[in-house]
């Protein structure tokens, strides 16, 4: 057996050993590892997350996520680990390493994986003595640094982060989570200037400022100010100005740990110089791997290269592949700051005159994207604000695959056209409305045939009348086809097409005239006093919202789904979803559902995305009996209404849970179930920011956070449109969460246009405005909204009770009496 000694028990050292073991190296080598840090190998990358989640009292539970190699791993693989022990010298001729605890170990092969440390730029007052930082000053490199920072942050007000690179921004965001105001001080003009060009730096700066981080660029910290007891009290900048802070985090770069290699007589420049087999250029028995390495002039500061290095090292040292060679890595990075998406790879700017450079900038929305192409290959990309293309770009960058002729396709999907793509560029046969299969040519033809408005073209072709996601593009195409001849269609502001009023005006009229039924509204307000099929549903919904129990319900004003309380399917059968509030069911319910499914030959039983059980393909005549036999209330999966509250298991079961998300979800659903609204409302409650119930993409999404608090997000979507909800408020109790959810929904019910989902409504109103109205009660209407919501809640009844007394003659009568249903496939 040969002796293999590894110095450095970090990500590269431990990975190299893992790779050696998978190549059968356990047979050849007895392995000894030295690690300066007193733990097993952990995932350094997650320190940012640890800091950001820091205030988490159950943080210890993260341990197994954080630790890549727990103590057992070393034991099971027969590795001798000297944790907390530092190697101080290598005697290359005697093949021995000397450690600071006095131990001496012989090696046949040695691996240096000493990583890097924080770089502390010379600054007055930074150090308390030769070895100790001033109390309140921290590096951000190790678990110890992170823990110490979290401990010190308690009760502090303000922190300065010196260095505005990846690490600094993550540190600043993390400290914010501990309640500190964060100031980032950056010497260069542009943040993250290693990865980003100047313009990207400016866009990023604005995004961070929006998160409440203060950014000082183009200035240095010349001194740390201290209190009389020697702790940090502030910083002084180049221009002599000062800032009072309680703590300072230094993230001004890293320096490879090359001291050991240096004193041992190995070639070092910026790092330990190695060849393509990761061996020191001076000594074939000494390998080096990770951030401490300099290979072909490059020193890396990210993990991806060290994974590649570790495989080559292992291939070579075990003889698994003596030809293995490392050729350097291409770098892609992502900023791990919640709320700011940044991804960068390769070059940040074009370097040669014939480099192609594609740039897209929309600073208002915090979006900036570039790609750089050389000789037909992607050599650089920056994505800010919208990183939806990062996967395909990374692939093109890593594999050097050929790129589309139209470079813009790298940044945008042209296949499923979005409105951003110039309408004019589309081919005539390009399908614009995917739901109704309408091409650009058809839209243009429709304009040529005399349609003069967007609404008119949409009506005639039904483009945009499916999921609605193509509406913007349809409008662009129609406008282009009209060539400035567009007639603005005043009808577009109408709540319903046949009454020339927007929603607030219509509501005022209805209230003043006391109109409580659809037919009354048509008679008094419609242009010709006639009723209009296409307006009935919207009107019924509005009237019920406004009048609650006083609404005069005319059944013919309802869409078929609302007449029979089930969702019509393509063959005229229906889907039935019983109420399973919060997605929590019981064995008894499951048994009943199973029995009903068998008794009525239900073609398909399906678990829905909203955590419900859907019985599909039920014949209309069977609906009342299905409900009676289920003996469960309606789950309201059919209307333009409050639909479902999805929940995760939360603090009752989940080891990460911070709040009882399940119960809160059930309570919200029980309270607001079935409420009619301009469009459907899907909700979710998650027990922690891991967001297992997908709260960030719901109309209203609630997330438990530290300290018994709940975040309320609104306007999220993950359907035809995908949008992350906006944080409306963070509240201190579940009762407030229930109330605020209700108040927001009531405001939405009163103010949204018909079929306007919250993901359009929230941006239309604007988050600040919404907060002012709903949270801060600027307009003094909060009380009224809450009352109106209470009235609606009180007016609720379970529509499935109609199985006892049909509301109209033939309510459940077959509409296609000769068609053998179901025609949907039976599974």
């Amino acid at each position, binding site marked *: 057996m040969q002796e293999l000694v590894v110095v450095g028990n970090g990500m590269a050292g431990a990975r190299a050993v893992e790779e050696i073991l998978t190549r059968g190296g356990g047979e050849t080598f007895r392995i000894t590892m030295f690690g300066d840090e007193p733990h097993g190998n952990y995932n350094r990358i997650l320190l940012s997350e640890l800091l950001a989640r820091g205030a988490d009292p159950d943080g210890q539970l993260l341990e197994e996520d954080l630790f890549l190699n727990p103590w057992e791993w070393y034991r099971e693989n027969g590795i001798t680990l000297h944790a907390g022990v530092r190697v101080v010298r290598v005697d290359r001729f005697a093949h021995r390493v000397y450690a600071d605890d006095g131990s001496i170990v012989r090696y046949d092969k040695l691996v240096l994986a000493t990583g890097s440390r924080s770089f502390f730029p010379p600054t007055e007052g930074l150090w308390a003595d030769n070895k100790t930082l001033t109390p309140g000053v921290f590096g951000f490199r190790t678990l110890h640094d992170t823990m110490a920072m979290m401990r010190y942050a308690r009760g502090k007000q303000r922190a300065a982060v010196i260095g505005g690179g990846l690490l600094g921004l993550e540190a600043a965001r993390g400290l914010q989570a501990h309640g500190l105001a964060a100031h980032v001080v950056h010497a260069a003009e542009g943040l993250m200037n290693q990865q980003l060009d100047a313009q990207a730096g400016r866009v990023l700066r604005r995004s961070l400022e929006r998160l409440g981080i203060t950014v000082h660029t183009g200035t240095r910290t010349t001194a740390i100010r201290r209190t009389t007891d020697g702790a940090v009290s502030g910083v002084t900048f180049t221009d002599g100005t000062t800032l009072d802070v309680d703590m300072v985090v230094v993230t001004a770069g890293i320096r490879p740990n090359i001291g050991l290699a240096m004193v041992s007589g190995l070639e070092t420049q910026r790092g330990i110089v190695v060849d393509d087999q990761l061996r020191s250029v001076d000594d074939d028995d000494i390998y080096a791997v990770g951030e401490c390495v300099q290979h072909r002039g490059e020193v890396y500061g990210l993990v991806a290269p060290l994974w590649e290095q570790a495989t080559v090292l292992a291939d070579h040292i075990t003889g698994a592949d003596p030809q293995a060679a490392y050729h350097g890595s291409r770098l892609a990075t992502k900023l791990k700051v919640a709320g700011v998406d940044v991804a960068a790879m390769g070059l940040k700017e074009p370097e040669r005159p014939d480099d192609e450079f594609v740039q897209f900038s929309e600073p208002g929305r915090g979006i900036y994207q570039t790609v750089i192409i050389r000789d037909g290959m992607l050599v650089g990309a920056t994505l800010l604000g919208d990183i939806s293309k990062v996967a395909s770009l990374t692939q093109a960058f890593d594999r050097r695959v050929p790129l589309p002729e139209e470079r813009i396709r790298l940044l945008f999907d042209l296949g499923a056209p979005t409105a951003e793509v110039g309408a004019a560029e589309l081919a005539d046969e390009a399908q614009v409305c995917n739901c109704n299969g309408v091409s650009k040519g058809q839209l243009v033809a429709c304009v040529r045939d005399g349609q003069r408005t967007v609404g008119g073209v949409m009506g005639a072709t039904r483009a945009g009348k499916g999921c609605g996601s193509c509406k913007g593009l349809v409008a662009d195409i129609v406008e282009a086809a009209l060539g400035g001849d567009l007639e603005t269609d005043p009808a577009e502001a109408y709540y319903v097409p046949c009454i020339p009023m927007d929603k607030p005006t219509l509501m005022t009229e209805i209230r003043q005239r006391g109109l409580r039924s659809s037919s009354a509204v048509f008679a008094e307000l419609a242009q010709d006093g006639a009723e209009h099929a296409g307006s009935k*549903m919207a009107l019924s919904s509005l009237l019920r919202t406004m009048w609650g129990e006083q609404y005069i319900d005319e059944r*013919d004003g309802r869409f*078929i*789904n609302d*007449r029979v309380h089930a969702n*019509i399917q393509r063959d005229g059968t229906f889907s039935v979803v019983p109420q399973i509030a919060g997605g929590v069911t019981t064995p008894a319910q499951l048994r009943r559902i199973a029995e009903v499914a068998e008794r009525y030959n239900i073609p398909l039983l399906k678990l829905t995305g909203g955590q419900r059980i859907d019985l599909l393909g039920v014949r209309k005549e069977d609906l009342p009996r299905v409900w009676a036999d289920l003996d469960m209330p309606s789950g309201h999966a059919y209307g333009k209404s409050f639909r479902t509250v999805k929940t995760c298991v939360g603090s009752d079961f989940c080891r990460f849970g911070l709040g009882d998300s399940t119960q809160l979800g059930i309570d919200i659903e029980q309270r607001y179930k079935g409420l009619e609204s301009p469009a459907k409302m899907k909700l979710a409650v998650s027990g922690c920011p891991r967001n297992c119930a997908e709260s960030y993409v719901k109309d209203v999404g609630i997330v438990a956070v530290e300290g018994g608090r709940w975040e309320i997000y609104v306007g999220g979507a993950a359907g035809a449109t995908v949008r992350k909800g906006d944080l409306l408020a963070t509240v201190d109790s579940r009762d407030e969460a229930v109330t605020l959810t209700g108040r927001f929904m009531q405001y939405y019910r009163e103010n949204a246009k018909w079929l306007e989902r919250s993901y359009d409504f929230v941006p239309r109103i604007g988050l600040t405005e919404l907060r002012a109205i709903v949270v801060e009660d600027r307009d003094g209407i909060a009380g009224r909204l809450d009352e109106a919501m209470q009235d609606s809640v009180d007016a609720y009844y379970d529509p499935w009770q109609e199985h006892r007394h049909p509301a109209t003659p033939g309510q459940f*009568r077959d509409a*296609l009496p000769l068609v053998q249903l179901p025609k949907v496939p039976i599974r």
Partner: protein
Amino acid sequence: MDQIPVGEGRAFAVGDEQVAVFRPRGGGLHALQAVCPHRGGPLADGLIDAAQVVCPLHNHAFRLSDGRCTTGERSVQAYQVAVEDGEVVLRLTR
């Protein structure tokens, strides 16, 4: 007639034809082929007003008077219909 609530439609099998009969709020009675020519939707389940019925599946609209589609789909058959002594009487001759 009692089988058709005001403002709604109901479907009936007459021989081997399926007929949807509509009773608009404003009065009158109309009979159309019950199956939507688009994808076979049940027109009797559609929303109506005095002039038209809207198919519940994809919103094609058909005139109650003559079955003409106003949204670009094929037309549906319209039938003569009358009320005699509270009974709905349909004439299927075309």
